[in-house]
Every structure is written in C-alpha cells, then in structure tokens.
C-alpha cells in the first residue's frame, strides 16, 4: 500500500505548488464568474415612490374619467379623458353629450398628441434675432407680460388703442366674451376671428333665405333622402361625429327603412363614398343643379304651396334641359332626383364643401335652401330645424373676418395702422392665399404677440410668443355651433396638471389686463379663467333657474363639471314659423361660379379639399394623424394631386410623377395620384400639409394648395372662394414615391365585401 501511496503523494507534492496555484486560480475565476453572473441577472433597482399627500380621488392602477370639450375642430363634441396616475391616456366621446354621444372621430382622439406633443412651446419666448428666423430667447412670464402691458398701456393712454388688434381662431363661449370685453375696455374695435373652415356662406345664405342668422340643425338622423351638394358631412362638414351617428341611424337604425343618400361633388369624398349615388356635376354648377331639381319638383306638381306659380316663374330659366347642359348631369337624373326628393318620407338637402366655396357660394346655398323649402323640410323632423337661442348670449361666428376682413387687416397693417397684433389659435399665413401677402404685411407691425401652444408659420413672425395651455389643461366653456336643436353648453376643465410653464389664454388676458392698468383690472377683476367662467355660469344659472330648480348653484356646478355638459333637451326649438316665400323667391339668383383663369390657359379646375384629419392644416403636427392613411387613398405623410385615370392617360401621367400645378396666383409641385372617382378636368389636392414651420411632424412635408388659390371673394358672404381657381399642369419629369398603405384596390372578383344581395 505504502509503496503505491508513496509515489502518489510524492507526485502530488511534486506538482502541488504550481498546480495548487492553478487550481486556486481556476476556483477564483469560477467564483468571480458566478458572482458576476448573479450581478448580471439581478433586477434593476426600481423605486416605489409614495405620494407626499394623496389626492382625494386617486387610486393607483385605476383610471378616472374627466369630461371636457374637444377643441380639435369647431363641432364642440363633449369628450371624456381617461386619466391614470395623473397622465391622460385616452380620449373618448362623452356619452351624455348630445353632440358626440360617446363617439369621437380620429382627430378628436388624437388630442392627446396635442397635449403631449414634443414640439410644444414650453416657456415664454422673445424674438432674439431677425423676425422669422426662428431664433427665440426664453424669458419669464413676468418680463413678457410687463413689457406687453406697458406697451399696450401706453397706446391706451395715448388714445391709440385702436391700433391694437386681436386676431383669433374660431373662439366661442366665454373666452370669446372675455376677448371682446378686453378689447372693448382697451378701446379697440378690432377683435376678429379667422377660421378657414368657417361655413360663412351657409350662415349668410340662411340669413338671406330664412332671415335666421345662424347655422341650423340639419336632422340627417331622421331623413329618408339626403341630398348633399358638396357637403362632406361625414368627414369635415360642421359636426362630423354627430352626422356620422345620424348617418348610422339613417342607414340601419330604423327597422325596414333605409335612408338613401346622394352626393353631388366633383371629387368623391368620404360622404360620396358612403352615398348610394355619387354625381360629379361640373364644378361650380351645383347650385344650378339644385335649382334644376327645384324646377322639376315644382313642375311635377309636388310643391303644394299657394305661390306655386310664382315659384314656377322664378325657376323658369332652370328647366332640367338647360341645367343638364350646364351641369353635365342628365336630364333624366335631375327629374328623378326631384321625384325622390319630394317623395313621401322626409328629405333633406345640404350644401357645403366646394359648393359653398365658389364665388357663387351664397347663391348656391340659397338655391339648396329653396329646395328644402319647396319639399317642405323646414322645421320638420328629418329636415332643417332652427336652433333656439343658444344657451349663452354667445356671438358664435359673427366675428368671422372672412377674406374681406383679412384683406382689410392686411391693408391696415401695410398702411402702418396696426401697432400691436395679438394672434391666437389661427394661422393666417398658412390658411390664406399667398397673394393676400399676409406675411409681408406683418412685417410692418411693430409688435406681434402670439398666444400659441405651437410654433407655426404665423407665430414665426411674432416678437413675443406666450405659450398657452392646451385645451386639456384649460378652463373654458363652449356652445356647439350649430347646436343640436335645444340649448346646450359644455364646460371644459383641465384634466391634467399643466405640463410646462404655460398659461391658459384666458389667464393671460386677465394678467395682461392687470399690467395694462386703468379700468381694465377693475372691470376684469377675476383672478383666473376658472373664476370668470364660474361666475358667468352662476349668472346664467340664476337667470334660468326661475323655472324653479331647487338645487343650489354649487351642486349644479359640480354636476355640470362631472357631466361636462348642461342642456335642456325638450326645450322649445327655434323659430318654427316658415319664412315667407316671397323673400325666398326674391333671393334666388343665378348661381354661377366665376373661376379665376381662363379655360384655355388653365384647362383644369383646382379642387382643394379639407381632409378629416388635418382640416385647415391644424392637425398636421399630430403624429397619429400623419400616420393615419387618408380614408380615400390610403396615402400617409405627404400631399398628392388627384387626377382622373382618363385625364392621366391622355397626358401620360403616372402615379408619382411630380406635377407643376400652376394657377394665376402661383404654382406648387406635387406628385400625381390616379384617383378613379374624380371628374375629368378636375385636380383635387388635399389641404393640410405643406407647412414650413409647424413642428417635426408637419414641417417640410407636402404642399399647401390654399397658397395658389386666387384671391376671389364671394360677395355675399365676404369669404374666400377657395374652390374657384383654374390651373394648368405640367410634368416636371421628376418622380416621387407616394407612400400608400393600400396594395390593389380592386376586389379581383373575390367576395371580400360580401356576397351581392339586396337585403334591406
């Protein structure tokens, strides 16, 4: 044993020194590796941060909903915002709000992109270099307001307050009142609003036809036959969400009764796609077509009024055959539409879009109004219902400047009559034709102050930018316009704590008033917008509670805040008396649009159209909307010009060919897109892209067709006739890939849309 063990031990001891070290080293490496491994798989340190003092209604991991008002377009939908841990997570329609009824469109839901937009202005800014260079220095609120206050105050003392001008977007509710009071107290009459999408023609036409200066409630929901002249009521016209709800009901909401819709427009819109019949009348002649239908209706003896003969005479010139030749709609179609329009059941005719944006805009809408009158749709369920007085003595729409007002402003600016220009929530540099030269005129204004959440083309000219809260961080109220047939008002409240060093517009005005001094701080004595609104609501409440409501105001206020809306359903609708026929007959004029540019030089009609996502360009800085395929073409991120396939074939244009679209007013370069549902001879370009300074998502993308629109005014409404420009196109030889999500847009005989049938 020993003999064997001996050498073994010997051998071990002989190698051991070196080997031992090696083994120890190996062990060490192993242990170190093990520890490193443990360290590697260790979870990151996460913290559990308690609140210092918890808010009352806070539960971790549980969402709370706050009701407020959408400000993404002017429909005034009530919205509910889902809040978790103080962050807004989702916007949905407010189920109790009569406009949205719990539903919401894409744009409204993208409101979160407004709130959390990375390009928001976070502090007050002062121009640090040449105007328009985009070079701004951060300053404090105090500094900004003091500077402005003293400047405006001085003008006021010098009696030159009229040289201060306030230009806002479409503002309603008590913010509008605050603006008006502020300017009034200052001694300036120049408080104007400019909103490209404002339906000025409809309002003017209703004043002329019915003597009612308002937007009535179009009861699509209960109509059996809806005849739309250019109004994209499902996408952009007045109140799309409300109309969509109505459309759903019209189609399938009534047992055994399916309403029919007909759309008349040169380029198929969402509403055109939804319609049973899409008629591409010659652009600018839609009003004429309405009169033709009216003629046929009266001729067929379907108008039963006592003044039938007078109507016959008034409409004599618009026989279907004449109209057919003008409008390129077959005589037979006109007569058929007249029959269907006057058939038993409810019918409704509406006008909007390009029809209400020619030089004949008001005349066209008046013609459509006449059609409604002749079919007996006024004040009827499923027809045109006039709104009662709005809930508040709001001045909805009456301050709209229109193109005429803006031209006056430009003139005043160029003449040096404007010392201070306050701009809020409107972007005239973008939303006016380039020929108006708004931007150049601004250079003559010594002080421009922008109250805005974002940089855009107009704020780029500002000397001071006062960052505003978004609508989700602000107090406010709103009266939807058009109303819903009964008095309604909504409250908007901040749903999240403000993110940055910004202020609500109302608060800025109140603070500014204090800096200006004089009687302003005394008359505008409210500390905040919240206080102001609450006081106004209290007054309103006391005025109305004569009816004998026994709850106190605080309870009412809390309930209204919780609901986000207050309304009086069942309250009397507006004027139900049918307006006199004779004035209507008198109001009918020949609705022919005058196009800028001769047909020989400019063979194509430019059809700019509003998109449901960007409207007048405001939505372009929201990434969700940029990434939302266009509903009709599936294009994302960019502009395009739509051409009929036949036209494209003739000119040898393929999709993606960059075209130079030239109007008498200017030219743009935009890639072509072959679109099968557009009238030959018409070129449609969506409005909304083509921003030069509107944040990372919108800037330098696509083109803005408004810029090449000729500066033509519709005389009766004073608004821009943006659909009355002719253009010529030229291939530049360059190409650009249009980014679309669609592959092939034909079913190739596959039954994807379902088996063909005629079930009702």
């Amino acid at each position, binding site marked *: 044993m020993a003999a064997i063990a001996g050498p073994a031990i010997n051998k071990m001891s002989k190698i051991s020194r070196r080997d031992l070290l090696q083994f120890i080293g190996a062990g060490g490496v192993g242990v170190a590796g093990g520890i490193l491994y443990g360290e590697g798989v260790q979870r990151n340190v996460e913290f559990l941060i308690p609140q210092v003092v918890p808010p009352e209604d806070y539960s971790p*991991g549980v969402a709370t909903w706050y009701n407020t008002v959408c400000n993404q377009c002017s429909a005034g939908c009530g919205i509910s915002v889902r809040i978790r841990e103080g962050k*807004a*997570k*989702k916007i*949905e*329609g407010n189920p109790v709000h009569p406009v949205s009824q*719990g*539903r*919401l*469109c*894409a744009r409204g*839901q993208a409101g979160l*992109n407004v*709130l*959390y*937009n*990375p390009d928001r202005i976070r502090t007050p800014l002062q121009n640090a270099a040449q105007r328009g260079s985009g070079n701004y220095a951060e300053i404090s609120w105090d500094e900004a307001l003091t500077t402005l206050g003293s400047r405006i105050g001085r003008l006021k003392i010098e009696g030159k307050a009229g040289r201060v001008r306030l230009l806002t977007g479409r503002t309603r509710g008590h913010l509008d009142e605050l603006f008006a009071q502020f300017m009034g107290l200052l001694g300036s009459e120049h408080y104007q609003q400019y909103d490209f999408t404002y339906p000025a023609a409809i309002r003017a036409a209703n004043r002329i036809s019915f003597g009612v200066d308002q937007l009535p409630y179009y009861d699509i929901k209960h109509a059996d036959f809806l005849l739309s002249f250019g109004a994209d009521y*499902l996408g952009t016209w007045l109140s*799309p969400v409300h109309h*969509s*709800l109505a*459309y*759903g009901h019209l*189609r*399938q909401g009534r047992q055994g009764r399916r309403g029919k819709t007909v759309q008349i427009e040169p380029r198929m819109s969402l*509403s*055109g*796609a939804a319609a*049973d019949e*899409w*008629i591409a009348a010659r652009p600018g002649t839609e009003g004429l077509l309405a009169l033709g239908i009216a003629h046929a209706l009266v001729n067929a003896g379907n108008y039963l009024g006592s003044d039938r003969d007078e109507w016959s005479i008034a409409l004599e010139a618009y026989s279907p055959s004449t109209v057919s030749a003008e409008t390129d709609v077959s005589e037979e179609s006109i007569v058929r539409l007249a029959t269907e329009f006057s058939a038993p059941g409810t019918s409704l005719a509406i006008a909007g879009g390009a029809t209400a944006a020619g030089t004949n805009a008001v005349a066209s809408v008046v013609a459509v109004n006449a059609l409604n009158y002749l079919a007996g749709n006024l004040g009827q369920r499923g027809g045109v219902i006039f709104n009662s007085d709005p809930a508040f003595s709001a001045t909805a729409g009456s301050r709209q400047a229109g193109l005429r007002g803006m031209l006056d402003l430009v003139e005043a600016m160029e003449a040096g009559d404007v010392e201070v220009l306050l701009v809020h929530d409107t972007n005239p540099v973008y939303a006016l034709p380039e020929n108006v030269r708004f931007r150049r005129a601004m250079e003559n204004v010594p002080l421009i102050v922008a109250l805005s959440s974002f940089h855009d083309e107009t704020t780029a000219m500002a000397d001071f930018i006062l960052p505003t809260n978004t609508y989700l961080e602000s107090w406010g109220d709103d009266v939807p316009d058009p109303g819903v047939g009964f008095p309604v008002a909504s409250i908007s409240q901040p749903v999240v704590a403000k*993110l940055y060093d910004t202020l609500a517009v109302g608060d800025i005005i109140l603070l500014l008033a204090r800096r200006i001094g004089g009687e302003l701080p005394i008359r505008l004595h409210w500390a905040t917008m919240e206080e102001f609104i609450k006081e106004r609501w209290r007054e309103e409440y006391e005025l109305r509670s004569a009816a004998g409501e026994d709850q106190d105001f605080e309870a009412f206020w809390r309930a209204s805040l919780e609901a986000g809306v207050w309304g009086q359903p069942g309250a009397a609708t507006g004027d139900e008396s049918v307006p006199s026929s004779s004035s209507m007959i008198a109001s009918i004029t020949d609705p022919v649009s005058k196009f800028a540019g001769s047909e020989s030089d400019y063979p194509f009609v430019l059809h700019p159209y509003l998109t449901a996502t960007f409207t007048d360009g405001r939505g372009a800085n929201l990434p*969700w909307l940029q*990434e*939302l395929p266009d*509903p*009709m073409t*599936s294009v*994302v*991120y*960019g502009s395009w010009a739509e051409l009929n*396939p036949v036209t494209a074939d003739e000119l040898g244009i393929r999709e993606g060919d960059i075209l130079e679209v030239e109007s008498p007013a200017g030219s743009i370069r935009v890639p072509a897109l072959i679109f*099968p549902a557009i*009238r030959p001879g018409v070129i449609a370009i969506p409005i909304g892209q083509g921003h030069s300074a509107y944040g*990372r998502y919108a800037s330098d993308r696509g083109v803005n067709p408004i810029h090449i629109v000729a500066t033509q005014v519709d005389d009766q409404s004073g608004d821009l006739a943006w659909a009355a420009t002719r253009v010529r196109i030229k291939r530049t030889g360059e190409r650009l890939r249009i980014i679309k*999500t*669609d592959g092939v*847009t*034909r*079913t190739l005989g*596959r*039954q*994807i*849309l*379902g*088996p*063909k049938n*005629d*079930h*009702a």
Partner: protein
Amino acid sequence: MSTIVEKLRQYSKPGYYDKFDYHWTMTIDLDRCTGCEACVVACQAENNLPIVGEERFAENREIKWIRIERYWEGEYPDIKMGFIPMLCQQCDDAPCETACPVYATYHNQDGLNTQIYNRCIGTRTCAVYCPYEVRYFNWFTYTWDEPLEQQLNPDVTVREKGVMEKCTFCIQRIRIAKDNAKDDNRRRVRDGEVVPACVQSCPTEALVFGNSNDPEAKVSKMMKSPRGYKVLEELHTTPSIVYLTKVQS
C-alpha cells in the same frame, strides 16, 4: 386513450366554445361604416401602437391592428367605394395557432386568439399563415418622442423588436370588466359592459361587440342578420367577426 379521443372529438366539434362563459364576437355593419378611421386612431391610443415614422411606412412596415381596406367597384362615373375594416378575426380554426412553434399564439377559453408577446420568438410563421394579414411584426424597437410616452396605456405592454403583435379585442378592457363582474359576484360580464376601443369610438355604431354565447346579447342578434357573412369563409377559418354586407341600392 379514450379520454384523448373524447377530447379530440370535443375540440373538433364546432361550437365547442359554447360551453364556456364567453365567446367574444364582433359584428361590423358595412352599411354603416363610412371609412372614417376613428377606430384606427382609437386602437393606436388604446394599445400603444408605435408611431413608426415615414420611412417605415415607405417600407410597408406600419403597425395598425385595425385598418380600413378600400375597394373600388366600376369606373367613372359609375364608381363605388367599399370600405372594410380589417382586424384580427379571432378565428376559431385559426391557421396562425397551429403554426407557432412555441405557443405564443393559441385559442383561449373565451374564444380569443391570443398573442403572448413575451413568449414570441419571432418566426413570423403566424403572419404568413394568416389569410387576413392582420398580424404585425415589430421590425424594430420603436420609441416615442418625449413626452409622447406619457400617453402610453399602462394596461398594455410596449412591445420590443422581434415580436409579433395583433388585435387582442382589447383584452385589458375585457379583464377589467371581468374583474368588476367578480366584484359584484356576477358570473358573466353584462352585455355592453365591455367594448374594445374601436367599437367604442365608431361614430356610426357600425361595430358591435359582445358575447355570442349569450343569445340575448346584441351581437348575437346582429349575427343573425341575413346580410351577415364572414370574409374568406371558403378557407374555413371560422372567424369570430361577422360582417354585414353593404346594401346595394
């Protein structure tokens, strides 16, 4: 052995899911649908879909769990457009479910075609097998420009690169509804208590969602419409989404 045979028979029997509490189903009325895409944004907001950027769109790599497909019919001037919202059909005989080697997608007891992101290894076979092409792959890890990430829904995972994703019928909402039902000691969620984001937002109320195992549910009644059909029915995927065809006038 007999139990296995029994089970197999049970599984292959149509209506196997009848014996469970739920069979979530959706009906889409194309006669109401206007193609407005409110549902698309609703889904994006609810389910943390990334903002992929122009380049990704150009590469055809967008992620939209619900999309609107559009089909023209006819030629100018007699041209019509048909919209059809396309989302995961939650098929009962889903081709994707057999394809996944790691069971990242399978059918659960509520008739839902699940997608478990953290199990997915990214073979993308499910997307190839899916006839509706409603499965979207995360080609990259997407980020949000600060502070857009504050909007992200904490009830839904943010997916990383290499993972397949698709419509879940807003499982997080179903989960909350079930939770509430349990709190109230109700066996089942009430009809209308839970709706996915797309259904909630639809301005024309074209989308209806509910439990088709409940004969009283609105969706069960809608499904019986003579206009009802299923897309690519001939492939026998037995989808849980019933479309109601547009009325041709």
